[in-house]
């Protein structure tokens, strides 16, 4: 945890990194920027844990027979992979790291509205994470990340209650982050920073916060019900006692569908900033992009039962949910078209963040369009619970959200660390990730339509699935390398990277108007905003980049 404190600071200017040293100055900090770094370290840890499980799964699936791990182990692997990646990596990733760092900077505030709650939120996350790790090391859980009853309540003998509690606690961390953002965006904007001047990153986080606030409590209480049913033998979901296991699915997806927009909306916000900066343009259709974020957040709550089309719900209800699923796709379409239109007549630079943004555009579009397949009732019946689903959501979550996250990390790295990352390596990594990604997950679409069910550790009855699985596993290793690279050169650049100027990209946005890294209270004097967002006509192209290309 004390890792970032070891960065030597050749720049004498006092900033949030060099103001104080020592473990406690980090663990008890209320500075949103330091908390963001605490989150960065912790979610990176969980990402690699989750990724490690993914690699083990892919290795198991290399051959049809179940030869590397036992069935039990495999079931725990995908469960822990799903839970960790969703609840401990992707949901906190952009909001808690980049959002935490940037929301106050972008709205021109000195900190988030409730700095202590912000710190508490990190501690809750860590408590949840430690419980999750403990649960994992002492046996794990084997229900899949979806916890379906009655398997989870009455049949499995793994540590459901503990895992549930871990997610419950992490959920509160997420709620508190959302609460802080909403209040900050409403109450802490700098003079002149009207709603229509907010960066779209802020709009995206505002929409995300709505979901965090209104969705998360429902999964919290659902987990309480599962834990109570399990521990106290109550009858709520157990059909033997007259309960309805499908009710569990309703409650679970009421959160977990909107949760997928918690994962994608912030990435959309990041990509919007990057596209504007690297095509040196105001974003096309600002207000449409802004309101489509809100629309996604609201409509996102209306579609949850599209995960339950074959679960035994009423077919009329299925009809409604299918229709609504298409309604939520419209605002996503609006965003994609506006991003594309922004490039038109731009002056486009191909720095690493932009490469990631391009990757995001392509992969999110593909993932989203396959979502349309799933929302079509007739097709869903065939492909649900197959690898088609696995491919769909990895395209959006890994291809979309993680790409967006990496793009954002590169874009704001100079601001966060005060150093430049090595541009050449970064472009290479972006390329490797893109190639590895497609190699891993494209074959899974084919597998899925051919009928390979998900959560199978052994497909020896259907050896015809092997070729595609081998491709996928090969891709996963490439992908792993692609993810390790940024990790390495970011660390490297903290010591050896060239010092960054305050605004190395010549980007618009308040965060670039303060020092890199920013001082503890963000701005030396309170900013007063008199210009519109994305005023790129007033900004020159990035200075002849003095970014060293590592050779």
């Amino acid at each position, binding site marked *: 945890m004390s890792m970032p404190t070891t960065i030597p600071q050749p720049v004498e200017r006092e900033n949030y990194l060099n103001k104080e040293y020592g473990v406690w100055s980090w663990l008890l900090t209320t500075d949103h920027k330091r908390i963001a770094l605490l989150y960065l370290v912790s979610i990176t840890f969980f990402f690699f844990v989750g990724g490690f499980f993914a690699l083990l799964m892919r290795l198991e699936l290399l051959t049809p027979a179940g030869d590397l791990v036992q069935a039990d182990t495999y*079931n725990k692997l995908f469960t822990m992979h799903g839970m960790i990646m969703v609840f401990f990596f992707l949901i906190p990733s952009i909001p808690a790291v980049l959002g935490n760092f940037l929301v106050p900077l972008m709205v021109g505030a000195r900190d988030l509205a409730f700095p202590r709650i912000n710190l508490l939120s990190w501690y809750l996350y860590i408590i949840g994470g430690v419980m999750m790790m403990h649960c994992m090391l002492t046996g794990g859980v084997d229900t899949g990340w979806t916890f379906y009853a009655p398997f989870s309540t009455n049949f499995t003998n793994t540590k459901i209650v503990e895992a549930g509690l871990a997610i419950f606690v992490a959920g509160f961390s997420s709620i508190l982050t959302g609460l802080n953002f909403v209040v900050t965006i409403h109450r802490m904007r700098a003079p002149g920073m009207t709603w229509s001047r907010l960066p779209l990153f802020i709009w995206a986080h505002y929409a995300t916060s709505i979901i965090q606030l209104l969705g998360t409590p429902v999964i919290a209480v659902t987990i309480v019900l599962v834990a109570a049913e399990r521990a106290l033998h109550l009858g709520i979901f157990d059909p033997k006692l*007259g309960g309805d296991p499908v009710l569990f699915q309703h409650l679970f997806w009421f959160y977990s569908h909107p949760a997928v927009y918690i994962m994608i909306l912030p990435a959309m916000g990041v990509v919007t900033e990057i596209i504007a900066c690297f095509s040196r343009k105001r974003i096309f259709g600002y207000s449409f992009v802004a309101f489509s974020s809100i629309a996604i957040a609201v409509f996102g709550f209306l579609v949850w039962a599209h995960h339950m089309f*074959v679960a035994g719900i009423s077919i009329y209800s299925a009809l409604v949910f299918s229709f609504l699923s298409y309604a939520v796709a419209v605002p996503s379409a609006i965003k994609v078209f506006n991003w594309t239109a922004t490039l038109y007549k731009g002056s486009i630079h191909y720095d690493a963040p932009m490469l990631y943004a391009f990757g995001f555009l392509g992969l999110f*579009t593909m993932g989203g369009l396959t979502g349309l*397949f799933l929302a079509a009732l007739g097709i869903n019946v065939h492909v649900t619970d197959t690898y088609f689903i696995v491919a769909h959501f990895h395209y959006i979550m890994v291809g979309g959200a993680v790409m967006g996250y990496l793009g954002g990390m590169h874009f704001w790295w100079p601001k966060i660390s005060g150093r430049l990352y090595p541009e050449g390596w970064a472009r290479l990594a972006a390329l490797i990730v893109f190639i590895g990604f497609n190699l891993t997950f494209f074959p899974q679409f084919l597998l899925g339509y051919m009928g390979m069910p998900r959560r199978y550790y052994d497909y020896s009855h259907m050896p015809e699935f092997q070729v595609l699985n081998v491709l996928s596993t090969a891709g996963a290793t490439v992908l792993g390398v692609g993810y390790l690279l940024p990790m390495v050169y970011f660390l490297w650049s903290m010591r050896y990277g060239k010092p960054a100027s305050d605004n190395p990209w010549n980007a618009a946005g308040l965060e670039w108007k303060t020092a890199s890294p920013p001082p503890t209270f963000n701005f030396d004097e309170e900013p007063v905003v008199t210009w519109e967002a994305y005023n790129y006509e007033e900004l020159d192209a990035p200075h002849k980049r003095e970014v060293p290309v590592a050779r």
Partner: protein
Amino acid sequence: MLNNFPLWPEQASTMAGHVDALYIFLLIVTGMMTLLIFTCLIFFAARFRHRPGVRAEQIEGSIPLEITWSVIPFIVFMVIFVWGAAVYFKERTPPSGAAEVYVVAKQWMWKLEHAEGQREINELHVPVGRDVKMIMTSQDVIHSFFVPAFRMKQDVLPGRYTVAWFRATKPGVYHLFCAEYCGTQHSGMVGSVVVMQPAQYEAWMNGGSTGPLSATGEKLFAELGCSTCHRADAQGRGPNLQGVFGKPVQLEDGRTVTADENYVRECILDPGGKRVKGFQPIMPTFQGLVSEEQLNALVAYIKSISADNSGAVGKTIKATAGTAAPSVQIQSSTQPKAQTNAQPNGSQVQ
């Protein structure tokens, strides 16, 4: 044509064509969309790459464009939605007169029982060209009955029946998967559906049976004492069950429900829940006293005594041979031969 394409699942049911048609339509539409977007991206990226001295042109946005690219996708979405819904309703409404197979799923096997009484494990034999309706329930957790070649999938829930149907079009052996995660051996809960020519099927059928399921049910009906109350002469303390199935039933609380499989099941397990108008609530609950298989037999029996004058009710495969699939002829005696070696779970192999 598609069946020779190695990356395409086999088409072996009437639904497969419908699903694939929609899928191909979607592939084309989304393919075109992808192409359009990628072309724009690449073209813009190349055409408008940064050149020294050339500045970006600031464009605010355009309401007509925004409307265009919200409304057109929405219209396309609606086409997909309606088409998808149409296919789904076909998938979800079993045709009347389908042959019936009772499925009991448990960790980690499929137990299947034909209305004629054949029992199988992890293997289902059906004739080509016949509508088959699966009446499914689970003994423990949620499973899902998935036959990719039929493009058919339905979750199987504990505590109630779910229904699915198919009509096989091509003889062969097809994968049967459990698609809903159900515990350790989820991936071992696989089997096959054997689609046979009618004549072969007939031979297989005669291979062994304990008699039709409804006969088992009839026996149970007497053994469990149902017949003491439910008598055929309307003299019993309970309603006469003849002709009840498939008909609307007037309930005590004023509602009217259709007597389907789930209704009968509920009547047996939870007689207090939906009470028939005009009767005393004296029927005891059989919860815990009958197994899922026995329940199926009872349901099949109650169905069979309603079958004579109602075309809407499922019949045994033989009884429907003429009506459901005129193109297929099956000659057989109406009574399957009773076999002595009928183990309850011996799966039958040709």
